[in-house]
């Protein structure tokens, strides 16, 4: 009797998890399936398998231009974010001054604020400065939203043990620069690496900032996909979307291997204080 009840519970549980898995993964699965179509419309299940749409988008100058622009913007923005974020984290790690916690909260606030509002504010601001439509403005916008992630991850990797080891090194006669190079930097390196890659992903994926700041000539990849999907999704759009997702997931796996994704996504985002 009890065994029977236990089995029912287990079956219900398995069924429920399956349902969740379908709900969460179905859209992704469908897009990848559609991209493999031989026909020119979004048939699902695909009619005949082929990679022709991948070839089509990778030889299409428009898609290539968007992919290139997105990669460049993400690379430059994440590097700038990495520098500012790492330096800031070191300053916060070493400095003991009044208002330090408030400053940390301030640094992380671009994560909390809806991206659409940040994008709008930057649009008006850059319009006033007559910078709109330049890739420079777009990069700056991406730096604003990516640098808090780097700062948080690096700050998280500079834990209390770091301070202890630094003190030990200084006691043994190392000067500050040596301590920094031999102790602080190696300990922070996984954090810096993961933060930078995550910043790259955030920038590469970004819609809300690019929506307002992207130039007509240089449309980023997510915005270009958005424009196409809004009209009509085609297997070609599905193909570039799939490539886009593979690239992001591959980078996310690197982050997961280095420091663990949960530490980058962060307690503030998922834990609310």
């Amino acid at each position: 009797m009890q065994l029977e009840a236990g089995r029912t519970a287990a079956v219900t549980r398995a069924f429920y998890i399956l349902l969740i898995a379908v709900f969460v993964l179905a859209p992704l699965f469908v897009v990848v399936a559609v991209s493999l179509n031989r026909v020119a419309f979004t048939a699902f299940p695909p009619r005949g398998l082929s990679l022709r749409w991948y070839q089509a988008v990778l030889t299409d100058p428009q898609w290539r231009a968007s992919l290139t622009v997105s990669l460049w913007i993400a690379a430059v923005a994440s590097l700038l974010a990495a520098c500012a974020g790492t330096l800031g984290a070191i300053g916060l790690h070493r400095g003991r001054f009044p208002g330090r916690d408030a400053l940390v909260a301030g640094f992380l606030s671009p994560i909390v604020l809806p991206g659409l509002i940040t994008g709008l504010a930057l649009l008006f601001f850059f319009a006033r400065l007559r910078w709109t439509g330049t890739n420079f403005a777009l990069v700056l916008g991406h730096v604003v939203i990516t640098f808090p992630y780097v700062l948080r991850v690096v700050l998280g990797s500079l834990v209390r043990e770091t301070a202890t080891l630094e003190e030990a090194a200084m006691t043994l006669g190392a000067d500050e620069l040596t301590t920094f190079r031999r102790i602080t930097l190696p300990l922070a390196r996984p954090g810096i690496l993961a933060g930078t890659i995550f910043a790259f992903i955030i920038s590469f994926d970004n819609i809300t900032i690019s929506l307002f700041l992207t130039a007509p000539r240089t449309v980023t990849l997510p915005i270009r996909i958005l424009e196409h999907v809004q009209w009509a999704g085609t297997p070609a759009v599905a193909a570039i979307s799939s490539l886009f997702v593979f690239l992001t997931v591959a980078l996310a796996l690197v982050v997961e291997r280095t420091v663990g994704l949960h530490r980058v996504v962060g307690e503030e985002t998922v834990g609310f204080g």
Partner: protein
Amino acid sequence: MSNVIPRGWPTGRPDRLLRLAARALRRLANAVLFRSRASTLIQLSPGLLILVALFALPLLFLAWVSLWRHSPNSFGPTPLTLENYRRFLFDGFFLRSILRTLQLGIVTTLVTLALGYPLALIMARSTARVRGFLLVLVLTPLMVSVVVRVFGWMVILGDTGLINKALLALGLIDQPLRIMNTMAAVVIGLAQVEFAFMVLPIFSALLGVGRSLEEAAATLGASPWRVFRHVVLPLSLPGVAAGSALVFSLSVSAFVQPQLLGGSSFFVMTTLMYQQITATLNWPFGAAIGFIILGTALLTLILLGVAMRKISPRRAGHAT
């Protein structure tokens, strides 16, 4: 070696000179970057520059613009007015969009809660392996671009989409259900990814509970339902509050899902704002809508933060 050194350079011991220079540089770096009081400021300055010049200042500017009067030909300061806010908060059409936004937020929160709570419970009680698998499952949509996810939903939910084809083939319906371009489609699109933000806080609240309290209650003769009702549920409420606040504020400030899954007549605050900025070109009005969205999202977070403090695990623990 000596022919490399330029004329006029003190010859003799170039390596020693270089070493002296290196040492001086090192002293300077030590003093400026680490030893002086200003060093912290130097380290923080790039971040501060970004925070102030590219975040705080634009937001202040946005607030200012929201008080401008709209002029079709120029984008510049005018006498300040609250007209933009009044127009949005008191006009019937705009008011309906506010109500629809709030409705979207509430429905999405309830859907993710109903779907997510059991999963959080299962995660908290399973082995590390199963837990890891479920965690990856929950986090996967976060790694997929929102446009790609929405594209997938359009293929699934459309009139000739997967669901309608399946239901027609099974003979359950005679004509396609209209799912696309309704609130339901938007809720589905939002719930799929915001699910993660509901599950994770509940999961971590439940982890904090520990099994010992439940076992104690069961030993004292409580039925499984009573254990859940009087022990597990109250202790998980902070997680529920946190998750709800996050999902609600993300839902009311979402743009891509309502824009693409809601159809051309589905107006929420964000899509109206976008329309004002890109089509109507009434920037001051768009700025005002932006601030109303921000206010709605922040107010929810603050309110639920307060509510959470009231039902914190410590006090719930004392109550039981």
